[in-house]
């Protein structure tokens, strides 16, 4: 599986949050890692981790959005007001001034892991 591109983040530790099969293909879950809410998505192409916080509704809901793609770029639509976010970069397609944090994530031995510094 491909890993979401995450720039300039050094990972010192990988935290297991769930088994890969706990995430249905083309959907997301929310993981609690070091007091942070992180939305983890599984698509046919890979696994992605972005912030669970939706800045438009100011609520922690992005893991419950519909996963899809826009011109081949994987994305999630917020379940509240439907803004779309790029799963690779955290960028909002509908408002380029908004960018969500992206986190290091990988699948190792069937386990989904989030990297922390």
């Amino acid at each position: 599986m491909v890993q979401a591109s995450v720039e300039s983040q050094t990972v010192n530790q990988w935290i297991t949050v769930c088994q890969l099969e706990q995430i249905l293909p083309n959907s997301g879950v929310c993981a609690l890692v070091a007091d942070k809410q992180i939305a983890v998505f599984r698509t046919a192409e890979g696994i992605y981790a972005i912030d669970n916080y939706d800045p438009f509704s100011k609520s922690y809901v992005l893991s419950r959005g519909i996963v899809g793609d826009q011109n081949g770029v994987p994305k999630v639509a917020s379940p509240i007001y439907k803004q779309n976010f790029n799963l690779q970069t955290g960028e909002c397609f509908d408002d380029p001034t908004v960018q969500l944090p992206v986190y290091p994530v990988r699948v190792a031995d069937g386990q989904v892991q989030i990297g922390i510094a």
Partner: protein
Amino acid sequence: MAKKNLVVVGNGMVGHKFLQKSIEIGATQDWNLITFCEEPRVAYDRVNLSGYFSGQSAEDLSLVEPGFYDQHGVKVYLGDKAAKIDRAAKKVISAQGEEVEFDRLVIATGSYPFVPPIAGKDTEGTFVYRTIEDLQAMSAYAEQAKIGVVVGGGLLGLECANALKNMGLKTHVVEFAPRLMPLQVDDLGGNILKDQIQSLGVTVHTGKSTTEIVSVGGRVQKMVFADGSELFTDMIVFSAGIRPRDEIAKDCGLTVGDRGGIVINEQCQTSDPHVYAIGECALHEGKIYGLVAPGYTMATIAAEQICGDGNSTFGGADMSTKLKLMGVDVASFGDAFGQTPGAKVLGITDAIKGTYKKLVVDGSGKHLLGGMLVGDASAYGNLLQISQNQIVLPPNPEDLILPARSGTSNSMGVDSFPDSAQICSCNNVTKGDICAAIQADNITDIGTLKKCTTAGTGCGGCVPLVTDLLKLEMKKAGLEVKNNLCEHFDYSRQELYSLVRLEKTMTFADLLAKHGKGQGCEICKPAIGSILASAWNEQILNPAHVTLQDTNDAFLANIQKDGTYSVIPRIPGGEITPAALIAIGEVARDFGLYTKITGGQRIDLLGARVDQLPAIWQRLIAAGLESGHAYGKALRTVKSCVGSTWCRFGVQDSTTLAILLEQRYRGLRAPHKFKSAVSGCTRECAEAQSKDFGIIATEHGWNLYVCGNGGMKPQHAQLLASDLDQEILIKYIDRFLMFYVQTANRLERTATWLNKLEGGMDYLKAVVIDDCLGIADRLEAEMAHQVATYQCEWQNTLADPQKLARFNHFVNSPEPDPSLLRVEERGQARPPYAHEREVLMAIQNR
């Protein structure tokens, strides 16, 4: 030959644009580019400064690509201000003592915010709104503030008020003029704008002159106005206009205007031909341009004058603008105030909808000179075209700003524009350019068209016009204008429904593989999830379907603004036993839910966390209740009156029929939600004529009305058939609903569907009553399948541990969402508003 020095004083938006343009036309061959930048960072997007408060960083706002200046050898004196110009020695001396010689000098020092001379204006807690540093100071101070006041109700002032509001402050705007945005709108427009802004929670004070700012302990406490009134506040932001920064020019003897501004000619040269001035510091024919677009035009012209062929000159700029301020449209164009001799004015004020539209036409009534729009600026693009291209007005120009009369469109339409009409003013693309591109490349979608022509890629305001042009050209070329669902399927909803039925497709994955491309999206997934449910009625939470569902369907509850859900059990016909009422009350009490009676004779339980939903439904189902499908694009309720059972006027038993109908059509997925009601007599207490299908009792049976709705665009239902017995009534409803489910567009409600249906009500009657398509038996059979395979979705889910596993906020912790907070109001719990939330968080963190 040695290179000459081209020095730019000021690295704001316009200064940067000048450097960019110069580099574009090859200036680095002959010139050393040098710039002074007073601020600690290079040029950034000041126009979108408020983006800083919605999560953008200083880097996001930057206009300079990292490495751009290095790459082109531009020398930047960062954090160093040009302090003095020595014109005799042709050099610039910086605040830090650097001396740089110049052959040509460009002054792009911009402007500074005007702070009125009010006593106490420098007290701690007063700010201006200009730089990123200003913003940082404001937001740091706002953390301990509750109330904020913006002085100045112009464009920037209202932007700033929005920023304060977003920071959770109780926000006021104080404007000296008798109305908001005095430069763009007149009194009538200003009043409408004021109402709209106030309805958003910002208090507006117009015609107020501040005389003093009173402080306590050295910090702002209140403002005192000339009329003696006072306003208590924690902080004040001045946004009362701009003044050109011309001191450096004045000091070296360049000509400046009486009221400031460095005088320039049409080549953007100052009184010294080696020195240029551009942007907000420049005064052209007595005018300072406070918008970025004219500044950019000056930058381009100056760059061409100095480094290029010097053919283009500055002849003033159009100040037409369209803005969205706090969600309220404001636009003005051309001679908006009707100052042309002989001009006539035509205006429409709608204080209910909160709109104001005004046209200024010339004496002959043939040409549009200008206008203003408040509250609804959708006509802006069209009107601007008409005025700029001198298109002859229709006989009743008021039609251009009146709401559409039924069935007709008012806009003059792109068809009537000449090829020279500028459609996209951001990128200067004409109608001719767009049409040529469509024809040359056989373009059939708006995305490609935008890419090819750059039309609509700036502010986006012209996209509706560009889309109209595309449709028009396609029609002319004999091409079918497609009604595709989204980028993943080149089919309409109706076509996909037929394909699913015909090919017996059972899953989204199969349909995508056969007829689609890509991975799907939030448009096609729920639409096809709904089609599959309407066709086969498999449980929507089955693994093959669950990821297609919008969150409401995915968690069988309605998501609310804070990410919690509301729960609505079915109460067929609005009839409920005392025991069931008590059970609902007990569940609400035990789970701390907010309860409210809905308009559809049901009870809404709000504030349930995702992890609580299964336990709540366990209890409700144990009490004999079932899912109400309030979360689905499905049947909501069949409302009823008490009918002949109790009412002295009732002629039929409306409650029994309502219960029967609700139980028949419960859970049926459709393109949109749909509602019903049954009234026991012609007094119509159940309001059946406002429903997607409504039934009214007569002496002889039932009258069936269809395609009505309340909501956003109310429409009365129309009579489909009269005096029906129950059997025929149900047959007709079965056929009607299934026909709608098969043929409507995504999210198209029955009323809209009927309005678009060719042949209208007569055709619908022919299909439903006379079976003119010969599909009545099939429609009835399909409905029978739906009725026979109905299951309560919650009962099904509770019996399946795999489905229940999703009902947790965290995949790796049983904790609920820690961000959820509640406050009590009138004895119930509700989510806090932003300002309450901050207080609660502060208490939590203590």
